[in-house]
């Protein structure tokens, strides 16, 4: 079965450093998402991406965050200057076109900001 893949599985960084989290969505999917889950808290929406542009973003997704689809397969989340509170599990997800198409999630990248 096709799956969403994320790399790396764990990322440790110093506060203030830039990190790039990588995702390869399912190949025929058209909508792409980043979510995050801080330990013990709920899964939070960050951003959705369609047709090479951001379609929606949450309040969390401020100027230090950016997303990019640099080629036909990768979808990246960049955090420019990491803060301690950015430590979380970051999930990439994708779905087909269609109103009620379910999200497929990757296994996540655990980001630890020291």
């Amino acid at each position, binding site marked *: 079965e096709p799956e*969403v893949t*994320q790399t790396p599985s764990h990322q440790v960084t110093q506060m203030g450093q830039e990190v790039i989290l990588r995702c390869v969505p399912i190949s025929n999917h058209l909508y792409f998402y980043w979510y995050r889950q801080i330990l013990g808290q*709920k*899964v939070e929406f960050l951003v959705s991406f369609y047709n090479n542009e951001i379609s*929606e973003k949450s309040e969390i997704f401020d100027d230090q965050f950016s997303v990019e689809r640099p080629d036909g397969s990768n979808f990246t989340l960049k955090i420019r200057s990491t803060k301690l509170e950015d430590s979380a599990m970051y999930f990439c*997800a994708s779905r087909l076109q269609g109103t*009620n198409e*379910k999200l497929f*999630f990757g296994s996540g990248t655990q980001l630890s900001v020291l």
Partner: protein
Amino acid sequence: DQQVKQNSPSLSVQEGRISILNCDYTNSMFDYFLWYKKYPAEGPTFLISISSIKDKNEDGRFTVFLNKSAKHLSLHIVPSQPGDSAVYFCAVKSYGQNFVFGPGTRLSVLP
């Protein structure tokens, strides 16, 4: 501002018995409802969904019930198995909008 609530953070059930997980939402515009299961260190995996035109959807041991007037969603697992132990998230969506997830309920199925 919690649009989706799962008021039980945890639930323990004996193997073979029924597990009932509940979810409440506030916005009557939501029209598509899903349940996801999440194991530690893994991403959420889709379990079952229901659209607002139905009040029940069944898939094997999993049944989702929707009560639109009460804005309430539930997931029934019967019989429960130890491998069902995970965190369960309900997710809701309205047309043209993104999915909103609940905080999750940790289910423990005891052998």
